[in-house]
């Protein structure tokens, strides 16, 4: 038979709050924390910031300025005609990588909505205007003219039509099991601009025009 508890021990046991009170307190704290952060209500949709026509989108990796939008009968980077039924919507932009690493984000940098001809999920071909080749990355500190091209039905778009251009960003993820601190999350739209389809340049900018 154990010895009776001392008066001090009995007093301590009396002062300890019951388990249900601790649990209720913890739940109350959690609810207060969630409520202070906005609760479980859906975050209201926000309109993307609008960049004035000809303005520069300053992203975390790339600075992008849309310079012109036009319809081209040939695929940018080539002199090959498209099929009789299609042509190319081209968004030409100056892109500069402001980081210390080559950026491969150029292929996800821009999406457009152009009537029913191009929707935001349509991926463009990305071509460097100077070389006429696919642009796979942007070199740090070296501006490049990129042509984002979508093949559209001929006649679906006309000169003067409005094109909505969305700029995307990707944000770093730290401690990725494969890429460490060099990983990025899914692309996110961060700004938009509007442009008008204008006259195509006299000749697509492909190479220096000679052939070996």
């Amino acid at each position: 038979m154990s010895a009776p508890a001392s008066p001090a021990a009995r007093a301590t046991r009396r002062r300890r709050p019951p388990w249900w009170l601790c649990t209720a307190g913890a739940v109350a704290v959690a609810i207060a924390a969630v409520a202070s952060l906005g609760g479980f209500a859906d975050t209201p949709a926000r309109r993307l910031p609008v960049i004035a026509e000809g303005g520069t989108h300053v992203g975390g990796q790339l600075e992008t300025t849309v310079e012109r939008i036009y319809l081209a009968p040939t695929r940018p980077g080539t002199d090959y005609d498209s099929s009789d039924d299609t042509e190319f919507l081209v968004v030409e932009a100056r892109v500069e990588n402001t980081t210390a690493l080559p950026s491969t984000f150029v292929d996800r940098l821009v999406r457009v909505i152009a009537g029913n001809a191009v929707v935001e999920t349509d991926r463009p071909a990305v071509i460097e205007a100077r070389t006429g080749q696919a642009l796979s990355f942007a070199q740090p500190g070296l501006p490049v003219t990129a042509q984002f091209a979508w093949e559209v039905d001929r006649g679906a778009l006309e000169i003067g039509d409005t094109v909505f251009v969305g700029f995307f960003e990707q944000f770093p993820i730290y401690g990725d099991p494969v890429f460490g601190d060099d990983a990025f999350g899914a692309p996110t739209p961060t700004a938009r601009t509007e442009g008008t389809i204008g006259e195509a340049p006299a000749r697509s900018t492909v190479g220096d025009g000679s052939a070996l």
Partner: protein
Amino acid sequence: MSRLTRALATVALLAAGGVAIATAPTDDTIVAPFVERGEVGEPIESRLATVLVDEVSVARELDLSYAEGALFGAPVPDTRSAGVWVVVSLDVTATYRGIDLGSSEVRIDGVRYRASTVLPDPDLQSFAFDPGVTVRGSIAFELPASAVRSPAASRAELVFLPRAVPSLDSVPTVRVDLRALPVDDVAEVEGARAVDPAEGAGG
């Protein structure tokens, strides 16, 4: 054990944990590649390839005449640069399987410049390296002109990454003084071709 002793022990353990966390290597450090350093004209052996840099030049435009006949009438890429080209001529011998030098870099003061994809076939980046066969060719890097004029360019590094993710792999690296090199109007680019290892700079 007194309450004070327990408190001191807890603080000591927390402090030790903090020191351990603060001094722990980062993920990048843990999987960092092993740098195999060498000089221009000196073969550098790594796990996947042996690399010998023959020459480094700087120019505003590339001479791609090596591709004559290989473009099948396609236009020559315009290589007039708003910056400069760093052209590296080298011999590469894969050790035991194919490699991909497309992720190779010039590094200046922590900034990493990737090899350009502008070179037409046959170039080193698209070449199928068979183990044991020495291949000669060029890799071109396009950089801002300010980068090669900066003081840090005197300690530029050519880093030949044999695969895109070189974690824990050995990587041939050559230090060059880009600032000391003249900026030519045009730099000749060598098309990739298999050579006898005893030939020229590689021999």
